[in-house]
């Protein structure tokens, strides 16, 4: 058994060219996103370096926007690697927000109960999406496109039929003193930033009713959520058995089933996770604005998918990286806010984004072919 017969085992195949360390290091699914991130930062350092874009409050500005993108991109990333899409993310954001507002403001529920209910309902809808995709065998594109419309319509209907308007305010007041709400709308490390301001390392407001307070008075929970979700999803995907199942389900569901991977369960759970991420986004947004609106989250599903694709994931599943998706989200946030800092006409945002999307995906496709031997 140990006796080699066809070829000596230790021999190095002469057709396998030896690769340098650097090349091996660069051969990662995230390469396109990394290059894009560097490019974007260099660009804005040149054109907007003097505008305060990279001062603490400037960083916070695009940091929060990037974190928003990252939260939904993480959910979309794992789902896409498992071989499915969720086009209902945007509608889910609007829906979850309205559920929270209607329950807490209109029906007077305690905020924590409203938030938990929104999470449960959204995750059940996510599970229903997944179950339908599995049971009907229809592409998730179609099934979740249907839920995109159904949820958006329901959201507007529920909002109007209960409060006769599509924007429900008063959430901040309803959240006063609640124990769960600060987990989404609060800020952490405030003391640290006051200390930084006292030391004169970050600026303080010079005038107005916040004079003397630091321009950045804490890390919003939104950013903490984004970071936590990125770390969780990255570890889950690359370091656990379940992560291997996610790759396998998206790579070839039938081959995975033959070796005992519970493909259906994996895919449904990923739909649930995507819904979870959308609800985190929705809750944080509702807490920040103090209101919910039925049209929130419009087009978010595409932005999430674009971030994931910039991050090197394969649209058809089985390949991708959470770190890449997070970088994709960062590019998104920096470009959207950066053009404002740079004083560039904001309609050019989409042009810029389209160009980056195209470049990153071309680079990613090339890299992926090298790594996976795809033809």
């Amino acid at each position: 058994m140990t006796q080699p017969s066809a070829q000596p085992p230790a021999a190095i195949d002469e057709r396998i060219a030896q690769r340098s360390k650097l090349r091996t290091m660069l051969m990662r699914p995230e390469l396109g996103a990394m290059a894009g991130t560097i490019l974007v930062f260099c660009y804005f350092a040149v054109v907007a370096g003097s505008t305060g874009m990279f001062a603490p409050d400037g960083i916070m500005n695009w940091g929060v926007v990037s974190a928003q993108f990252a939260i939904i991109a993480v959910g979309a990333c794992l789902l896409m690697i498992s071989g499915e899409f969720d086009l209902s993310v945007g509608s889910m954001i609007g829906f979850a927000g309205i559920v929270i507002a209607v329950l807490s403001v209109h029906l007077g529920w305690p905020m924590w109960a409203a938030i938990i209910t929104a999470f449960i309902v959204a995750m059940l809808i996510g599970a229903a999406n997944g179950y339908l995709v599995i049971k009907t065998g229809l592409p998730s594109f179609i099934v979740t496109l249907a839920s995109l419309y159904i949820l958006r319509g329901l959201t507007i209907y529920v909002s109007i039929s209960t409060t006769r308007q599509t924007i429900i305010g008063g959430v901040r007041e309803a959240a006063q003193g609640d124990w769960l709400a600060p987990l989404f709308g609060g800020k952490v490390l405030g003391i640290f930033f006051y200390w930084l301001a006292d030391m004169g390392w970050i600026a303080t407001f010079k005038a107005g009713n916040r004079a003397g307070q630091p321009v950045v008075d804490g890390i919003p929970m939104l950013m903490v959520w984004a970071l936590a979700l990125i770390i969780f999803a990255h570890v889950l995907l690359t370091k656990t058995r379940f992560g291997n199942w996610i790759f396998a389900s998206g790579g070839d569901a039938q081959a995975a089933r033959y070796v005992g991977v519970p493909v259906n369960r994996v895919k449904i759970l990923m739909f649930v996770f995507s819904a979870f991420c959308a609800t985190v986004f929705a809750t944080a947004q509702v807490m920040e604005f103090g209101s919910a609106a039925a049209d929130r989250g419009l087009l978010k599903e595409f932005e999430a998918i674009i971030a994931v694709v910039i991050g090197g994931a394969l649209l058809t599943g089985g390949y991708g990286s959470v770190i890449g998706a997070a970088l994709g989200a960062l590019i998104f946030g920096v470009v959207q806010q950066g053009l404002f800092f740079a004083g560039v006409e904001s309609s050019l945002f989409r042009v810029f984004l389209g160009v980056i999307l195209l470049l990153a995906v071309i680079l990613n496709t090339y890299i992926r072919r090298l790594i996976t031997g795809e033809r």
Partner: protein
Amino acid sequence: MTEPLIELIDITKSFGPVIALNGVSLSVMPGECHCLLGDNGAGKSTFIKTMAGVHKPSSGQIRVNGQAVTFANPREAMSAGIATVYQDLAMIPLMSVTRNFWMGREPRKRWGPFQFFDNEMATRVTMEEMRRMGISLREPNQAVGTLSGGERQTVAIARAVYFGAKVLILDEPTSALGVRQTANVLATIDRVRKAGIGIVFITHNVRHAMAVGDRFTVLNRGKTLGTAKRGEITPEALQDMMAGGAEMAELSDSLGGTI
């Protein structure tokens, strides 16, 4: 004489009005390579799927180590030591060799309340098994897509052997391969056989069968045409049985007797 690892007696299988198998018998001894030959549509696939637990036979008996068994699903067949390597569904090209090797049976290590994929152990075992099969990997993270077709089959075989297969069913492992790669796969079969594992080698290439086979069973139109030992039958006779005799002889003549 030792007991067969698996024995299938008079298996029939019909799908509605279609009779796919009409009395097929076959047994596999430890360390034996049993070639199952047959033309397209002869019922080879249905038969191995019955053996692998995908289909339930309409009648007939399956014995494993002398005990009559029924498999409710492929998983039960697998835990009885019957592993199948499918021609094109063996591996996921986008995933690394290590991830493929352990797919569905990932080793885990504890870290506090969490369980993580034991990457170190997985990598070590994968590299070891690959070396044993004569495949030199550049690195364990190499995607399966970068391997040749023959190497992919070999990885799949190595995986099945490592996870305790006693009977290995190979579904046309050489049908899509070049000459050199075929030789490698046949060498792998030989190596696995010497470890005492019984092999069912499905093919319609008589030369590949003759190269490694100990016994040969020919299927035609859902029936066993008989089983012959190595040395008892010529390649020409096998070829004739597979194709159904007379008309094939005619065809073969017109092509200069080279098929």
